[in-house]
């Protein structure tokens, strides 16, 4: 699944570790989500969307 997490993290000037701490997950989880190797659970996807002020639909694209 394609997503815009890396792009939005970059726009906020956060490192993967900083984003991981804000979401209370490991840096590895952020890296796996950004590279598309891991699809987050619904609660985590909502937490990411809420943090960036976006909707899940604009953040994650299941068709890609």
């Amino acid at each position, binding site marked *: 699944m394609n997503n815009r997490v890396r792009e939005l993290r970059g726009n906020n000037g956060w*490192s*993967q*570790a*900083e984003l*991981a*701490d804000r979401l*209370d*997950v*490991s*840096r*590895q*989880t952020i*890296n*796996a989500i950004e590279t598309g*190797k*891991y699809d*987050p*659970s619904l609660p*985590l996807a909502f937490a990411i969307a809420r943090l960036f002020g976006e909707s899940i639909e604009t953040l994650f694209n299941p068709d890609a």
Partner: protein
Amino acid sequence: MRAIDKRSAKSRQKLGETFYSAVAYMATTFVCVWLLKHPLSDSGTSVRAVVSLIPLIPIGFAIRAVIRMVRDGDELERRIDLEALAFAAVAIGMLALTLNLLMSARIIEISANMATVWVLPGLLLTYACAKIWARSRYQ
């Protein structure tokens, strides 16, 4: 240097606890076996029972560290732990079955004492190796 988040730092600390506990288990096992074979060979049953159970203490700490590591992990870490534990359980089970079949056919001979002593350390070691493999799949 790559930044480390709080969760990864905690996870590494618990992995270290597991490793040191496993080393302590092996050391206490060798010491206790030596004590039971030599200085305490003629001791009473209660003394021999207490000494023989000493290795359970460090292995208990190792199991506690693994449980805390799995419980405190995030969703991806739990998935990795589950994959690694499942692989380790199946691998050790298959190894035990293979050895048992070879022993039944009298191709190899292993004492039951040696075989049972190595089950838990083998499981923990295989879990650690499987975790490295499982983690690499998400990097």
